[in-house]
């Protein structure tokens, strides 16, 4: 079975935004259902990301990965200087506040720090490449 996580995430987002209890989509032999306990819906929760029950199971795969996104437009650097080692490599355990990379803008080297602890499981941008606001830089798995 091929699981399209991005699509599933879209559905969960929609469930949240529209304050629904269930969305079910069937197409050919595929079927997706996202459900939530009605009691879990609070009155004013825009963009709540509190998946429960079945939703939680579906989103589970996602849940143990989170992304570090770029808070700046600029150029992405993995190391403090061309000759030095990268701040982090795939497989590294990281702690909150640890520097993960640099995003350079207007000649300023902005150090991007980890906001959660975990393991680096993916580096999503090549060294020296430009990044936009919100671009995903690293995937971190909670430990």
């Amino acid at each position: 079975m091929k699981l399209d996580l991005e699509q599933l995430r879209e559905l969960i987002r929609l469930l949240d935004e529209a304050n629904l209890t269930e969305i079910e989509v069937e197409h050919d032999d595929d079927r997706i259902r996202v459900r939530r306990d009605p009691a879990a819906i609070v009155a004013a929760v825009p963009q709540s990301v509190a998946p429960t029950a079945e939703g939680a199971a579906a989103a589970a795969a996602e849940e143990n990965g989170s992304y570090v996104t770029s808070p700046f437009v600029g150029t992405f650097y993995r190391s403090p200087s061309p000759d030095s080692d990268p701040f982090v490599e795939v497989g590294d355990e990281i702690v909150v506040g640890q520097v993960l990379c640099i995003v350079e803008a207007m000649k300023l080297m902005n150090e991007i720090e980890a906001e959660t602890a975990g393991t680096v499981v993916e580096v999503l941008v090549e060294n020296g490449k430009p990044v936009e606001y919100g671009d995903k830089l690293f995937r971190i798995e909670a430990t």
Partner: protein
Amino acid sequence: MFEKVLIANRGEIALRVIRSCRERGLRTVAVHSEIDADALHTRLADEAICIGPAEAARSYLHIPAIIAAAEITGADAVHPGYGFLSENPEFAETCAQCDLVFIGPTPEQMRQWGDKVSARALAKSLGLPILEGTELLTDVDDAVKKAESLGFPVLLKASGGGGGKGMQVLRSAEDVQASFETARAECLAAFGNDALYFERFLERPRHIEFQILGDKYGNIQVLGERECSIQRRHQKVLEEAPSVALTDQQRTDMSETIRRAMSKAGYLSAGTLEFLVDDRGELTFLEMNPRIQVEHPVTELIMGVDLVAEQIRIAEGEALEVRDQPLAPRGHAIECRINAEDPDTFAPSPGVITELHMAGGTGVRIDSGIYGGGRVPPHYDPLVAKIIVHAPTRAQAIAKMQRALSETIIGGIRTNIALHQRILQHPAFEEGRISTRFLDDLRG
């Protein structure tokens, strides 16, 4: 010649700039907030960079993000459009420091003309006619004294204000005493600056403005005037060119006065000099807007120029064509600003555009920032499109605009089209008897 221009704006003006760039063979970079990821300017530029979240303060007004976007895309010039950072001298300076050409006047000129009191003084020194007014007011007693010597009614204005914010009409010494301290406090809160002054208050003035262009070699072109009296809370709603209030002689004389004044000032790029016209037809300088204006297309249509292309040419260092006599206007043009707003309450009306047909046919120009199936976010200016018409006579232009509005379909949001229709069919408008109080009178 530039190769790539970054447009530090959104909506119809961003697309307007993309157009002139593309016709000159320049590549374009759009910057956009997260909510504008599918906006028209984002989709239509050659490259698009997300610079921040929806809040303008963290995206379209965030100088480092815009500069960084220019750096990573290799843009060599920045067009600021209107609003946002277009009149921010720090932005222009930062561009210069980062080897980016800012397409507009110099930071010094933006400072000179941006402060209203210094702008008045400068205009006066350059030989422009000035509405009688006072120096800055030191305290309430000074204010009463100065108001009395100017003669009531007076208009209390904030030196750092704009868009009519902080203005008040005072009709007696008691008014001044009652309002001065509160106005000062509000002004400080709003603009971070509590400098206030008085101007003579005109009850039913017209608002007329002259378009100018200046190059690096001191040449100034004056491209006629626009009539912008149809305003709501000091926001222009409908503009036209030329103005019926000016005689040909007045137009020629005032153009020459302005040309001399602005040559002396060495003004660079596009700018607009705003004037009030009293009931005797006398023009007095109000302020100078050092940027392209929303209503620039009416001038483009009657003068046959592309003002944004001229701004780019000037920034590239080209010289303006020097003419023996100013260009003559050809025909009459009207612009209606289409806002996403409730036509009665004026409350903003964001949403998804479910149906869309913009007016077309002969003599109709559309400068729009929306598309069918697209979204109008609630975070920005409600101006979604401009309908501009051009016809041989004013009466024909009015008929054409009525026809254009009648065929415009914008579903999914509410718009002010009905308001424009009421204006255009009003006998006073048809006869050209208008003032900045027209809309208040219409609604009153």
